[in-house]
């Protein structure tokens, strides 16, 4: 099964990164169309009609979100979410590195639809190479008159700033991103008010993922109908899927939404490593409840099918575990990530992630009892729905699912580890010294 490349078309061409290379492949024609031949409302309508769903995690209809921004000439903003920090996700990196102008063009067109005069690309601080590439591309786009004042004589202005983050997963959460962009600690805000009404600097703000915005030039160029020709009714279009973990060919693959998940994992990514057996996978990044191989392999890879199966498509990142992978250890890694990344603002997430890590550490050390597993499960329940943003839930859902679906393995792990307590090396291999975790300098 081959890929269906729209966003990654020509991505093998190293010149694509430059404005000339991009234009050589027809780039910026959509921008010219949007600015010269279309009114903002027409652009917005095309986006709404396309049914494009957000590629950053929540899958909210992009055009609809843009239509929530109030009309009028107050200052409005567009933020491109390039924070991509969820374990398993690396598609935005690929899109920015190989085709930065596609994103810039998408931003400029979306800004026209939303009436935004100022746009920002919030890129995670670790993506230094990609930030440099974007900086260069933005300079080229200004030079060519696709950004700046009075774009193509439309009397529309757009300033675009590449803003490097500094290392905090939470800044991917859209309201935390706004705080970070305002120069504060990246703490999520209470919603409502939603960013579309009151976002950056208190102004209406449209926030979209890199991949979402990279789709925009194609939709405006070729039309909503063309776009809907890909994917399913509820999940139109193609998706760049990051596949990683215990597979032969980890990487980004662009496919039509709705293809069988098995094709992604077993064909495109080459399937399990030699001599290994698939066990489970996260279908949509580390925040999605894991599916066992039996549950998940034959599901269509679409927003609706994953939701129905009790998980989610999320950012479209598959992490594959085979039979060599210990689920309790994987749960611990997952929990540690969210514990480390919790911003600390709200109680259930801050304390719940910390508590979960401590319990799971006891599990893998064999210092827990099956009753502790009940507490682990109950703590996840106590987190879900009670937090300020969904970071807490993002740990509680996968960890809860793992305890539920692999209870036996957890109990076996406890038993085995407690039997082998005498072997200090083995313990060292799986545990960090307790004082290194959760305590302060």
């Amino acid at each position: 099964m081959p890929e269906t490349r729209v966003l990654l078309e020509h991505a093998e061409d190293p010149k694509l990164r430059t404005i000339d290379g991009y234009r050589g492949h027809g780039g910026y024609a959509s921008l010219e169309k949007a600015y010269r031949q279309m009114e903002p409302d027409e652009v917005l309508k095309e986006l709404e009609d396309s049914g494009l769903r957000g590629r950053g995690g929540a899958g909210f209809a992009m055009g609809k979100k843009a239509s929530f921004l109030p009309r009028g000439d107050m200052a409005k903003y567009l933020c491109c979410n390039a924070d991509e920090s969820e374990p398993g996700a690396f598609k935005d990196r690929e899109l920015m590195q190989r085709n930065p102008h596609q994103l810039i063009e998408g931003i400029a067109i979306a800004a026209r639809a939303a009436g935004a005069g100022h746009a920002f690309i919030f890129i995670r601080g670790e993506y230094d190479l990609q930030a440099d590439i974007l900086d260069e591309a933005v300079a080229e786009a200004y030079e060519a008159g696709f950004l700046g004042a009075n774009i193509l004589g439309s009397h529309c202005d757009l300033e675009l700033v590449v803003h490097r983050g500094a290392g905090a997963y939470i800044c991917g959460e859209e309201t935390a991103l706004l705080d970070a962009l305002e120069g504060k600690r990246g703490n999520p805000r209470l919603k409502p008010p939603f960013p579309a009404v009151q976002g950056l600097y208190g102004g209406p703000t449209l926030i979209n993922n890199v991949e979402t915005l990279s789709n925009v030039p194609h939709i405006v160029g070729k039309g909503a109908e063309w776009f809907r020709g890909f994917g399913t009714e509820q999940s139109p279009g193609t998706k760049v899927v990051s596949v990683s973990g215990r597979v032969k060919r980890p990487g980004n693959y662009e496919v039509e939404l709705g293809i069988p998940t098995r094709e992604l994992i077993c064909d495109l990514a080459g399937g399990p490593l030699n001599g290994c057996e698939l066990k489970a996978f996260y279908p949509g990044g580390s925040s999605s409840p894991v599916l066992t191989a039996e549950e998940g392999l034959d599901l269509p890879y679409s927003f609706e099918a994953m939701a129905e199966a009790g998980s989610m498509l999320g950012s479209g990142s598959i992490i594959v575990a085979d039979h060599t992978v210990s689920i309790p250890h994987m749960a611990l890694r997952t929990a540690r990530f969210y514990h480390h990344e919790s911003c600390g603002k709200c109680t259930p997430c801050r304390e719940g992630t910390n508590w979960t890590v401590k319990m799971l550490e006891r599990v893998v050390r064999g210092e827990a009892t099956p009753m502790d597993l009940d507490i682990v499960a109950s703590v996840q329940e106590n987190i879900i729905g009670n937090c300020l943003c969904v970071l807490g839930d993002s740990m509680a859902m996968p960890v809860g699912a793992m305890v539920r679906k692999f209870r036996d393995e957890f109990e076996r792990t406890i038993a085995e580890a407690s039997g082998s307590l005498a072997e200090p090396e083995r313990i060292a291999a799986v545990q960090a010294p307790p004082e290194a975790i959760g305590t302060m300098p």
Partner: protein
Amino acid sequence: MSDLPPQGLPVDPAVDRGRAPERSAQEIPELHEVGCPDELREEIEERMSRYPDRKSASIPALWAVQRRYGWCTPEGIRQAAAVMRVTPAYLESVASFYDLLHTSPVGEHQVHVCTNISCWMRGADELLEAFAEAAGCDPHEARHGALSADGKVFLSGFECLGACDIAPMASIDERYFGPLEEGDAARAVEQLVAGQDVLPEKALAKRGLAGDA
């Protein structure tokens, strides 16, 4: 400090050093007090000019401080605070929130080894240990950050760096390399310290698309 009733008032070392109220952390320092190098001031001012609100430049300003001094030193933070007209406490608070901004000294070079799920499944713990051995620092400490024996390399386990396709991987002086084998660690550290190009054949920048391989 014991939890007994204090005899009189505690002696705060900072107060002993004669910090009158206005010398406290309170004030936004004035530029003439902080000796901010011109290039740093200009860079921060240029950054501030890009945003509708100058405070948005706090992360870029801290990056500039870190590039100049190796980490976000108290002096550097005060300089940035004076340029930005915010309190140093504000900037320190921001800096300490983010993993890539350091509020204590780190080495000249930085190696972040991803130890998150996908990399862990493909040998990240072992890779981190190999780096620790190569750099001569304690592997347990390295999980949360440790300096090499010669003080030149700061090695740290890291959460997902967004490169699970090249697992196990590391970010070395802000550029990505992978997939790495344990043997690569020693070579990378050597090259770093010698000022050479690090693991050129493993650079992410040079890879093609997975589907084209």
